């Protein structure tokens, strides 16, 4: 019953996350937008698990694990970058741009 609305909410949240990644220059906010996208995918998994079986809820666990690992490593990279460049603004971190 709630499947269609849930998938619509998930699509909207995912698009907001993509928009945030394209719109912001602060590396921490971009990581948070990625978390938002992962959550939208989780909502899709849970909504479809009502119809297609409980394996979807098991997958949400794996997605959460990957999200936690990604947040830890990403924030460590941001700390290392801040130590070298004194900024988290991605416009001023352009060593690889050539």
């Amino acid at each position, binding site marked *: 019953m709630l499947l269609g609305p849930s998938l619509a909410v998930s699509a909207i949240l995912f698009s907001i*996350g993509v928009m945030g990644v394209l719109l912001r220059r602060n590396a921490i906010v971009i990581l948070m937008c990625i978390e938002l996208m992962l*959550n939208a995918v989780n909502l899709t998994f849970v909504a479809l698990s009502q119809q297609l079986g409980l394996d979807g809820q098991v997958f949400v666990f794996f997605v959460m694990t990957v999200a*936690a690992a990604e947040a830890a490593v990403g924030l460590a990279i941001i700390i290392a970058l801040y130590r070298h460049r004194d900024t988290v603004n991605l416009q001023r971190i352009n060593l690889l741009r050539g």
Partner: protein
Amino acid sequence: MIVFFWIVAGLAIGSAVLCITRRSPVASALWLVNTLFQLAAIYVLLDAHFIAAVQVLVYAGAIMVLFLFVIMLLNLGRGGPSDIKGPWGRVIAGVGALVLLGELLVLRNVTPPWSLQLPPGTVASAVAERGAVRVVAEPLFQGYVVPFEITSVLLLAAIVGAVVLAKRRL
């Protein structure tokens, strides 16, 4: 129930929009926490009670605390000048998001084949019969036990990687 769903969904979407538009990273993080709480409420409405509890504990409780910790550690809380891109960046982001949204909303109309679908109410009755934890734990520790163990290797790699990257010198 559908009214409650739309209230919660509206709060989630509004918080997500505020999350990507606030200048201060702390405000962004707190709005994102609000979004995660609303998503937990949606999970409860979808009969995924255990996932909802894990969502609050792991996402809102652990991952977002890590984000806030790093923001405070780097002393970025005051915000400073806006980091949102200029007009062209906004147009590109808006168009990209709208195209993606359209695609996802069209994909929503695809129905899975009948042979895969469970009869309606199966999950709710399974939760009522066997408990909210058991319905998730049984597939996790029987069918998916090898991926579950590989997950522990992933977490170990993430721990080692985070320590190596963030430490000044080993």
